[in-house]
């Protein structure tokens, strides 16, 4: 089957990384699992907003694909200045002492947008984009961001007692492909493959996910 994947870092496996040789010691993603059986074009981009993914979706010739997998990311992201932003990324960028005053002002305005301007209309547009996609492509398989985020954070909480955001703020990068350990990438890949083989709606069962067996330093690498 020819499959297109759209979404954020939960779909952005190493194939799309700038440095494709980074963390080669960490095992395969769910996308790698599916690559054994299907011809995959992965349009996912880490940190991307739904608007970014949706524009990519709109500008792709979907007639080439037998199936589309879409991860609709968090509504708390925005595409601006040629890139995708959330409040965490803005705060990281603001720690840079070499910012021009103009760029700093723009970042502060963007931070203020998230804190004071973002409202239910942004959530409405988020849901409308998802509705638009499913109208255009009724057989789309949706991976729910909330489920994946919960599964990823469960891995962190159960074993290391921390949320992923706290791990990032402590200066670590997530070496897990698609924010899941190898074992859970395999489980997720198999669940998706089952849906594809049997032409079923996608219903991810995160209860089947396991506790990561390796130590913290294997999955999270110090960058700062």
């Amino acid at each position, binding site marked *: 089957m020819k499959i297109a994947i759209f979404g954020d870092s939960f779909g952005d496996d190493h194939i799309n990384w700038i440095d494709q040789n980074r963390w080669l010691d960490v095992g395969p993603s769910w996308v790698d699992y599916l690559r054994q059986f299907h011809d995959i074009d992965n349009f996912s981009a880490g940190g991307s907003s739904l608007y970014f993914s949706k524009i990519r979706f709109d500008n792709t010739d979907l007639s080439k694909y037998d199936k589309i997998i879409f991860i609709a990311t968090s509504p708390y992201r925005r595409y*601006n200045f040629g890139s995708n932003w959330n409040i965490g990324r803005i705060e990281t960028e603001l720690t840079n002492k070499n910012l021009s005053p103009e760029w700093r002002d*723009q970042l502060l305005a963007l931070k*203020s947008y998230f804190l004071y301007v973002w409202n239910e209309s942004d959530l409405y*547009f988020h849901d409308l984009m998802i509705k638009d996609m499913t109208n255009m492509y009724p057989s789309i398989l949706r991976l729910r961001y909330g489920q994946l985020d919960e599964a990823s954070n469960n891995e962190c909480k159960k074993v290391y007692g921390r949320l992923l955001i706290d791990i990032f703020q402590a200066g670590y990068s997530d070496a897990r492909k698609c924010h899941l350990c190898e074992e859970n990438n395999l489980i997720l890949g198999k669940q998706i493959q089952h849906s594809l083989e049997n032409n079923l709606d996608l219903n991810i069962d995160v209860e089947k996910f396991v506790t990561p067996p390796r130590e913290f330093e294997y999955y999270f690498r110090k960058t700062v």
Partner: protein
Amino acid sequence: MKIAIFGDSYASTYAHNRAKPYPSWSEMLSIKYDIVNFSENGSSLYYMKRIFDQEHQKFNKIIFCVTAPGRLEFKIDTLENNLNYAPWYQHISTIHTIKQRLKIPELTELDKKRYKILYDYILEIQDFEQEQYKHTMMLNDVTTQRPDTILIPAFPTSIYGQPNCLEDITRFEDSIFNKTTGTYFDGRLCHMSLENNKVVFDIIEDALLNNKSKISLSRDRFVEPSADTKLLLEDF
């Protein structure tokens, strides 16, 4: 036939100082038909779309006067229950609206800070392409839910592929009176004279009676306003 109207000041029944020198096109329709007009001055397409989502099923026909992309809704608690400003204080149609809001005496320092944040958002962050995209998606959803909707573009950017709009009438009348659009308090209902409200009424009634969802607002259909219409335009 029960008809709903959604829109901004080009469809509402309010004018400057709440004076009504003549009926608007929507009021002319309400004399002949069972009309509920949800329109509000300065409202965004998002605001009207939310009401449309809740209400449209109760009506046999929908008239949707489509505003420009990029308008916002922004609530300020201090103004929410103040009858001098409700219900429209939350509609932010342009950056100039914020400048007007900042003059409101009842605002607290926190309110002013919030408006300034919104001002910076519009200036630095708001992206026209994204706004146009959201706008188009909302319109597509309206016509998907109700293919029989009569869409009326209020502005040139309201409906892609339909450059003739209601604002053309305003500008045409302003040119007759030697006025620059937007530099006056507009006492005209729906920003146009009685004569052109009648023309719009005729166009829409024809669409209702002949089951049309698209209308033509070509310039040759509109007429020169009477001279006393100029009295309704008060310079700032």
